[in-house]
């Protein structure tokens, strides 16, 4: 089936997703459940990855700038800008596409192959809206918070690792992360994280919602969903960077 078929079906699914909900109260209850399931449960992995990447970047910047002509603050500046501009938005979205995206595809896909979605439809429930809308809202809502958490713990990771590895002192690192700071970088990345949050929820939901077959196909759909979400994240990263940063 062609590329345009999937595009058409994806937008037709979105039209159903954003239809007027049957009962707001149930959707809100579902939304809180998804915020907890997809967002709060991801905080731990975001912190672990960010701390390590922050530390690794600090060591690598120090290594590549081991030249007396370069000011030592460049290590903190480099770590900060990489976290702000790319890692905590794009790389984190790629990681979340693996964790949250595959979870969404397998959950919705399993509901499809076990006829739970048919069951909702027969009850007269808009299954696309009931199952997917709370997930999209939840992920779009939590992504900016995850971005902020990631930046904070990434910088913290660099601050802890730098002195332990003996590559930079804490005062130099703090001075570096304050040097030539452009607040717009945060605005830019928050905008990106909203886009990426939408992709991370809606694309895997699409692959799960239209899965056909059994457990094997659900697994294949999860893989396809993660791969396609990653490609779309990188594509939109390029577009957004061109539009908002240059």
């Amino acid at each position: 089936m062609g590329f345009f078929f999937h595009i058409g079906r994806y937008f037709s699914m979105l039209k159903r997703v954003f239809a007027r909900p049957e009962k707001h109260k149930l959707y809100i209850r579902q939304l809180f459940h998804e915020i907890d399931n997809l967002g709060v449960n991801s905080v731990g992995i975001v912190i672990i990855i960010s701390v390590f990447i922050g530390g690794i970047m600090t060591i690598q910047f120090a290594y590549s700038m081991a030249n007396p002509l370069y000011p030592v603050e460049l290590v903190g500046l480099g770590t900060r800008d990489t976290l702000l501009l790319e890692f905590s938005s794009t790389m984190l979205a790629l990681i979340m596409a693996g964790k949250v995206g595959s979870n969404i595809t397998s959950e919705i896909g399993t509901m499809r192959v076990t006829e739970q979605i048919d069951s909702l439809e027969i009850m007269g429930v808009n299954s696309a809206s009931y199952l997917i809308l709370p997930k999209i809202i939840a992920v779009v809502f939590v992504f900016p918070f995850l971005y902020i958490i990631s930046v904070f713990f990434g910088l913290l990771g660099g601050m802890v690792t730098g002195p332990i590895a003996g590559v930079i002192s804490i005062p130099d690192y703090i001075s570096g992360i304050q040097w030539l700071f452009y607040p717009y970088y945060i605005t830019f990345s928050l905008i990106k994280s909203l886009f990426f949050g939408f992709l991370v929820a809606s694309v895997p939901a699409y692959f799960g919602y239209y899965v056909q077959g059994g457990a094997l196909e659900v697994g294949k759909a999860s893989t396809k969903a993660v791969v396609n979400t990653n490609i779309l994240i990188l594509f939109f990263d390029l577009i957004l960077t061109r539009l908002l940063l240059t």
Partner: protein
Amino acid sequence: MITLKNIVKTFDGNTVLNNISTVFEQGKTNLIIGRSGSGKTVLLKSTLGLFEVDSGEIWYNDRNFTQMNQKERKILRREVGMVFQGGALFDSISVEGNVRFPLDMFSKMSPAEKQKRVEFCLDHVNIDKQAFNLSPSEISGGMQKRVAIARAIALNPKYLFCDEPNSGLDPETATVIDQLIQTLTKEFQMTTIINTHDMNSVIEIGESVLFISHGQKEWEGTKEDILKSDNQKLEDFIFANKLYAQMKKGQ
């Protein structure tokens, strides 16, 4: 009552249902029987609108379902209960939550009234109170089917559809499920359509039986008529089991 008129359904050029007409009567257990792949499930799902028919008409009493738009169908579906082959209970919520779900979604009952209705439905299908808070994966297959029936009757439906409600169950539990469906059909005067290839069900509750073969209506009658039928395909299907063949010989 549900009336099917000349239903035709094809998939990629293959005719799966060919000109099927029948009437499913209210207050009766209407069985659709046939071999695997004969088109039973497609007929059931087409009647529900999960598959769009290519031609023909489906009438729910005096309402033409095939002419309805999506919004009208959604409203009509609130009068429909369905028991799926695998139960199709929602994994993420408890037994009680599954039965309450349609009430939360569509009724204007107070929480106390909902609780009363949930208990009434679960009690009708003999589910013990201790199982109310268990998740569907923690109960047996037979119990899952009974919870699915309780969920299907929660909104007091006029029409009940059951897709192979006995599959995967032992004969004793299967008989319990059959009798339960028949009792509920009589009690609530529903139009019940059951898709099955279980001959015990035909003998137990086959008040009206539609036999389809290769997507065509082959025979129609009651369980008593089966013994008198001279339809070869029906005979081959029903009496494939030696026990039933001996029963026929002895009438």
